[in-house]
């Protein structure tokens, strides 16, 4: 039995699925569908989640390597910030009011996504990146953000990361 946490909740995986990548465990065993399948070989980053605070590509991380790890997915990002939370935000027709992580808020303000499929991964990558680089230069962003967005929202991702950095400082 492999024991670890997902969004602060303890989960267990049978040893017979130890070779299953975390991505599929999150999506099909935990019903956490925000983490997306894009390439399966760690190239695109659509499946990015945090493991002990660092960005990992969950399509390429088998459950066997996760004993005692703390995993955060996009579903756990907004609620996890607690005291750091920005003000409540309401968007468009969505009735619920959510407390967003500053990176999510910067994404909303920049209307970053187009199709949106890669964006949970982009947001998770950016949130982890900003912890290591609280005041990133353009060069830092170019080197540190390697997720693919086929819709081409990079210009807005770059700006949103800078805005989030400002709001978090």
């Amino acid at each position, binding site marked *: 039995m492999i024991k670890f946490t997902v969004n602060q909740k303890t989960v267990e995986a049978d040893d017979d*699925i130890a070779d299953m990548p975390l991505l599929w465990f999150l999506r099909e065993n935990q019903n956490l569908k925000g983490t*997306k399948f894009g390439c399966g070989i760690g190239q695109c980053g659509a499946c990015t989640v945090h493991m002990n605070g660092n960005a990992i590509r969950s399509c390429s991380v088998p459950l066997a390597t996760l004993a005692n790890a703390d995993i955060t997915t996009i579903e756990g990002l907004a609620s996890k910030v607690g005291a750091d939370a920005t003000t409540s935000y309401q968007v468009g*027709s*969505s009735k619920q009011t959510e407390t967003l992580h500053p990176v999510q808020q910067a994404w909303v303000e920049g209307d970053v*996504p187009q199709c949106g499929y890669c*964006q949970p991964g982009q947001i998770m990558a950016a949130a982890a990146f900003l912890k290591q680089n609280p005041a990133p230069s353009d060069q830092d962003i170019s080197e540190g*953000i390697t997720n693919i*967005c086929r819709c081409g929202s990079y210009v*807005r991702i770059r700006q949103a990361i800078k805005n989030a950095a400002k709001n978090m400082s």
Partner: protein
Amino acid sequence: MIKNLSRRRFLQLTGISTTGLVLGASGLAYWRHRKNSFIPLPAELPESAQTFNLFVHIETDDTVHIVVHRSEMGQGIRTGFAQVVAEELQADWQHIVVVQADGASSYGSQSTDSSRSMRDNYQRLREMGASARHMLEHAAAKYWGISPDLCQAQNHQVVRQDNLATLRFGELALTAATLSPPSLPELTFKNKDQFKYIGKKIPSVDLNDIVLGQAKYSADLQFPNTLYACIQRSPVLGDEVDHAGSAESIADVNGLSGVRKVHPIGIPTSKSQFKPLAGIAVVADSTWQALKAKRALNIQWKNKEEHSKFNSDDYIQELKNNLNKSGKILRQKGDTQAALNRSNNKHSAAYTLPYLAQAPMEPMAVVVLYDKKNINVWAGVQDPQNTKWQLHLHLGHDYDDIHVHVPLLGGSFGRKASPDFVLEAAEIAMHFPGNTLQLQWSREDDIQHSYYHSASAVQLEAGFNDNREINAWHAKSCFPSIAATFSGKEEYPASWEMELGLVNTPFVIEHETVECFSAVAHTRSGLMRSVSNIQHAFAVGSFVDELAIASGRDNVAMWLAMIGRDRYIDYSDHGYELGNYSESLTDFPFDNRRLKHVLHWVAEHSSYKATASSGSGCGLSCHYSFLTYVGIAVKVRLEQNQLKVDEVHCAIDCGTVVNPDRVIAQSEGAIVMALSAVLMGNISFKDGQVEQSNFHDYPVLRMHQTPKIRVHIVNSDTKPTGAGEPVMPVVAASLTNAIVAAGGERIRDLPVNKIYRV
């Protein structure tokens, strides 16, 4: 008169776009009340919503449900359509909920392609909003017992003009929905200066869900009793499984943990145009088990000679060679050959592009539930109506018992206009009645089994007269028509494909010939963002620059000399009837002033003349596609064989703009996608098989390669045209022109990374 089959007509004939079942009437004909309804009510619309017309449904709590019948793939159509309806309805945006339509013929075309969703629906949606508003105002008049003239809707309520009493839309909904819809002449519309939503930056209605990870794409839907499938498809077009040779492997995989069934798929004999490829499906208890089992398969294939020797490098050379044969002339004026023979100063160049794959971030995924009667499909497709029709053709199942629901598309760029993946999923699901079957394509499946943008070759030849004017122009294009994918025969490019940028060049030249050349298709080809505009705009934009350099002129001066005096372009004096993207020249004239304007704008704002120095340069181009005018300037640096794209300036004139921020986003995205294609896009075939498999060998642009991008929308009150595609084709020539300006080589055979590191 040269016979001209419009693109839409072509799509109708091949069934790509619509089916014979589509009603051809205008919007008003659809208006019916729910009780005697043939209005298809989307499954997600609550029972309590009162139906005003096909698109507007209002609840007593004030919620306005707006039905969007085109697919959302990142272009923002769910937001844009809702803006238009809400505008004329006088609704408050906070009460708007967007509902996605299922596939149903009542909507008219649901084909989300050709950058035409807003163009096709802008006026119709205004009518729908205005009609519902009219009904609400009349219901209020009835309640108050006064003339409707005294009742005016504003901000989600009807205001009584004589004493300012109000009734909320929700309070009026029950009564208003029972009234007869007004006739078209009774409707009134807002003026532009009264707009609250049209022309304004409104955040995407799905934005919150997306950033929270709650947005639902096909594979995110959760149903009980789900089985998961993956398919190993034939690597060479037309191959099928050698059952005897594969039997042992199939038996082994059948015994793997979690595997429910190993299911061979033969070469389909159905009437559907989008026949799945032959292969072997694995059905398992989870996607991971299905993927693993698929990898364990060792399938022997029965080869067909026809495609098993196919090599794309040779093929591109063959396309180029074909250009010297005798082609099919589409448009002709004067005597081009004689004029070229007379010219003492003539130039010729050929340009080629390899195959390209759309590679949307969401690999194809489908959910199918077959309950022994109904087939319910949840699939991110560009046309749910045609998908329904193709399912009917493929399975022989009763058309009325097939239901296609459309979650968000995780990108598409033309790929999901071909519903082959839905057909194969449904075919498997029929073997598991009562279970939900989810089919997941891997990235390798996507890269190796696309409907590719075909390889192509274009040759242009021009002759100057003694006054340094171009008086002869001969344009030739060779690529396998998309129709060849469906016919399996050698085909000439169709006139609609040639009108994507080569037949409809904006020049005034005394002697002109536009000719196309046939080719055999060795792989499936289909739609990719801007389609054959990609190769045509690259060739024309490059060649104008080559002519400018050859005649010692500036790029802009060369364009202006060739475009000539201000005018509407229609080629009728060439005996050619312009298809004009299926729109009339009265409603959508081809206005060369608008093209000149976008060119001037980018020339001025990129300060391109000042940029040229050793190692850096700026290139320009402009192009007309999807009834939209786009100019692009690209600035590059070239240092020791390393190319860096620094800036892209874009001016787009797409008529009336509903959501400027989404038009800017589409332009930014199209520039990035075009840079991917121009710099490094290359799908190659060897022995009939695609050599690439994933993003490591079919790279697309990433953050570090993305330039600064500036997009300018030209202010215009003309009808809305297209925004999703027209920026895409203009980038290639601007970029390769910039490389020349920076002292680099003229690149005529893409991608650029054959020559320079990118």
